[in-house]
């Protein structure tokens, strides 16, 4: 799980071009300034590319925070 968080952290830092991002289980869009509905899908595509997976529609609509995202990735592995 730690490894997943580390990789997610790198994707988020790259994507938002912000080295100060520190993700935890509870992180949501509210915690990161630039994370809005318009770039959410691009962020999802970046995460999918990193882990070589595609989220399903159910997963995308159900995800409440980064912890849940990491859990889905872990379950897929």
């Amino acid at each position, binding site marked *: 799980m730690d490894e997943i968080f580390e990789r997610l952290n790198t*994707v988020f830092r*790259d*994507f*938002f*071009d912000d080295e100060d991002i520190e993700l935890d289980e509870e992180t949501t869009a509210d915690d990161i300034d630039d994370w809005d509905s*318009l*770039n*959410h*899908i*691009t962020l*999802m*595509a*970046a995460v999918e*590319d*990193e882990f070589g997976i*595609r*989220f*399903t*529609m159910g997963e*995308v*609509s159900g995800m409440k925070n980064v912890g849940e995202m990491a859990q889905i990735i872990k379950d897929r592995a």
Partner: protein
Amino acid sequence: MKDIFTYPFDSGFLLKKQKSLRKEMKNDGVKRIPVKIAVLAGSTANAVCDQLELFLLNYGLEPSFYISEYGQYWQDAMFPPHELTEFSPDLIYIHTTNRNINSFPAVTDSREDAFAAIDGEFQRYRQMWESLKEKFGCPIIQNNFEQPPFRLLGNSDCSDIHGRVRTVNELNLKFAEYAENEQKFYINDINYVSACYGLDAWADNLSWQMYKYALALPAVPYLAANLAAIIKAIYGKNKKVITLDLDNTLWGGVVGDDGADKIKIGMDLPSGQVYSEFQEYIKLHKDLGVLLTVCSKNDYENAEAGLNHPDGTLKPDDFTVIKANWENKDRNILETAEELSLLPESFVFADDNPAEREIVREQLKGTAVPEMDGAENYVRIMDRNRYFEVVSLSEDDRRRTEMYKANAQRASLQKSFSDYGEYLDSLDMSAEIKSFAPPYLQRIAQLTNKSNQFNVTTRRYTDAEIEKLASDDSYITLYGRLSDKFGDNGVVSVVIGHKDNDTLHIDLWIMSCRVLKREMEFAMLDNVVSEAKKCGITKIKGYYYPTAKNAMVKELFGSFGFRKISDDNGNTVWELETAGFEPYTKHIRINTEEN
């Protein structure tokens, strides 16, 4: 390292890094041409604009965007909102997809009704284009339609008039026919790009249902690259030259080691066929006006022997310049560029050897270096990079190889004269120098965007601006077209100046480098002065603004007899009294009569 904007694209990387890539390019100090792009979209377009921006920045263009409200493409086109009018686009992109076909024929429709439905759909789009043309007059790029996500009629969907595949194909044909008859209307062929990408992967339903994107996010860089290729071509940023390695690029094997009779080329063996096919593909580019040159580490005799192989398609004569020696390739490309009066950034360097590619990529920024891995992939790799996107096939383009050949003939003629003036007379030159007028307006705009070296102010003009200037009395505009006994060089020089009481300010003075040292700049000067005098102008002011590329015209006005009146960090202002001006031109016959 591979250039990230070279096919095939790493979509994940481009999407992930778009923010830092954008920042990096925006801060690299490169002077780019600003382009205002209005995106009228039938689906979400933000990621499309983000990726398009990266590709355009890479091409030396700096876009800013107006994006229509979600799904408002038709309304925006028919009744432009204030923001759009205010934005005053240089270019309009209509990002519609098969999600924006409102009325497909129903299976129960009569044949007539089905056709009527398709035509009604086409008219809806046509109205939009006509409205935009009238209101903005700028280039319009319109997506055609990708194939539909399902086939109700199975294979008959493509043949039966009630089928959606048939509808898409009919509409695409109507779009194409419209484009064929319009000057500034271009199709972004997403039908082709989505097929290359894979339709199922492209038409990702989740992206549509959740976010109203008509294509999957990883497909967006491919769409953006295809679109950027059209835009860069409109702005005159196509490549002009393919410079080719020989061994294992144009034929299999090493001619110096194997001997010309042993190289692999021709239809007898698959290993030769693959190179024949590539040679044929390369040769086709000559019809587009693309110049071909050789850049090979070989003894010249061996290179020539290889190119004279009876089964080869390309012959020594097809190449404007052949560099076959043991110098570094970046040196050879630089020399070739100088001989052709072109910049290295106009070159595509095709070589199977990754080490040679790396050197050229490092030494010559701007020279395109495709990843030529695997001879069976050469054609696709070259083609997908869209180096030579055709937006209008001008007569000049088709004749370019001829023109450069004629230049080479002129050069050899020059050697046989002791006196340069005698040489110029022998060329039997005549020039047409007149105010801007059709049918040259497009070519004039193209030149203003392409000329970097012989360009005192590096101002760029759109087609629409040139059209406006042509009928504006407060301007003096002149184009110059030069012919000689070896051929017609086409429109090669443009001058624009605006009048301010008794003074004429020169806004633009450009010339194509292929007519350097032909006295053409003086012919233009003589006519600028005589036109100015006719309007009661007593003083002409010239301006020079230095860029990385225009050092050759630093003293242009000085050589014309202008007096330098100020110098602000290299930005210089020059002045000439028109009284007492004596024309310079001695070797060119000039035709200035209005048509």
